[in-house]
């Protein structure tokens, strides 16, 4: 199948859209960012489950992106919680719960990460959702998504999906 490929970020809208501010007519841009998605199959085990090697880094989120949603399609239930983190450099540098801590995947279906899965992150890690490359050096670098289960157990299976807007480049306001 053919593909339409861009370096991005992809923005859609027009530059000279008419709008009103209070009662004053103005002209300005109304562009929005395209929402981007990357996914990978994951399975439960007592170690890093994704990626398994530096040559297996298939979920790489461009620098300065805003993460808008993380979910797991659970096709076989897990009996251990899942941490979702980020790696930088050559995979050796990583924070295994940079984005999500102790995600419960015991029910078949689409599990969407919510406040209860992110309110126990390390200090400032929540800012990685706002800007994925804001809390660890190199700042402004690409990040590889990692999936980690602290111990073994049943053979949980799922598809990890990360949705984001590329290179929005927000600064911390917290």
């Amino acid at each position, binding site marked *: 199948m053919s593909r339409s490929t861009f370096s991005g970020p992809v923005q859609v809208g027009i530059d000279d859209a008419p709008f009103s501010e209070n009662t004053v007519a103005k002209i300005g841009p109304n562009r929005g960012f395209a929402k*981007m*998605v990357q996914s990978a199959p994951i399975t439960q085990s007592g170690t890093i489950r994704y990626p398994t090697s530096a040559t297996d*880094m298939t979920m*790489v*989120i461009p620098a300065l992106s805003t993460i808008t949603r993380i*979910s797991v399609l659970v096709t076989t239930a897990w009996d251990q919680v899942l941490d979702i983190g980020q790696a*930088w450099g050559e995979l050796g540098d990583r924070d295994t719960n940079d984005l999500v801590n102790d995600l419960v995947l015991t029910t078949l279906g*689409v599990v969407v990460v919510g406040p209860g899965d992110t309110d126990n992150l390390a200090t400032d890690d929540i800012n990685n959702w706002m800007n994925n490359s804001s809390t660890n050096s190199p700042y402004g670098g690409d990040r590889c998504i990692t999936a980690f289960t602290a111990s073994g157990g049943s053979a949980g299976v799922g598809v990890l999906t990360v949705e984001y807007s590329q290179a929005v480049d927000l600064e911390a306001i917290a």
Partner: protein
Amino acid sequence: MPTTTFSGPVKAGGISTSTGTTLSENVANQGFGKMVQVYELEETAATRAARTYTDIVIPANSQITRMAVLVTSAFGTDGYAYIKDSTMSGGTSDTSLAVMNCSSLGLTDFVNYAGIVYEAQFLLWKDTGASDRHLDYEVRAASATPDTGRATLIVEYVQNNNLTE
């Protein structure tokens, strides 16, 4: 308004091909554009209305990431819409891509199959298969007439993500 149309899939990222193992330098960082199709569901009978085709056609080998309904006129107690395609049976042995609860006003995501065992269909969320899928729906409702439920079905997907592993 004019539209910009691509055969797709649409991908974006500054590095298109991995040639090494150093992030930001030589590891591919392209993601897929998330696509959305919507269709208005109508409740036309109290129970087991005939299946109705939507205008939603999902390209082959896509990954469905989200289904939701925005209910603007409630279907009533136990009002459900079963989202299917032509390969899925109806009746008591029916299978579905999702069962959407349309019994009350508001936006509701499809979450899981709790209490409903259609696990084989779940794998279609990961990869819709080698052919395009034309979605239809069947309303199961216990509401009284006039059965005027209305909801907007929202299907979000990644075109030709091809998660076959």
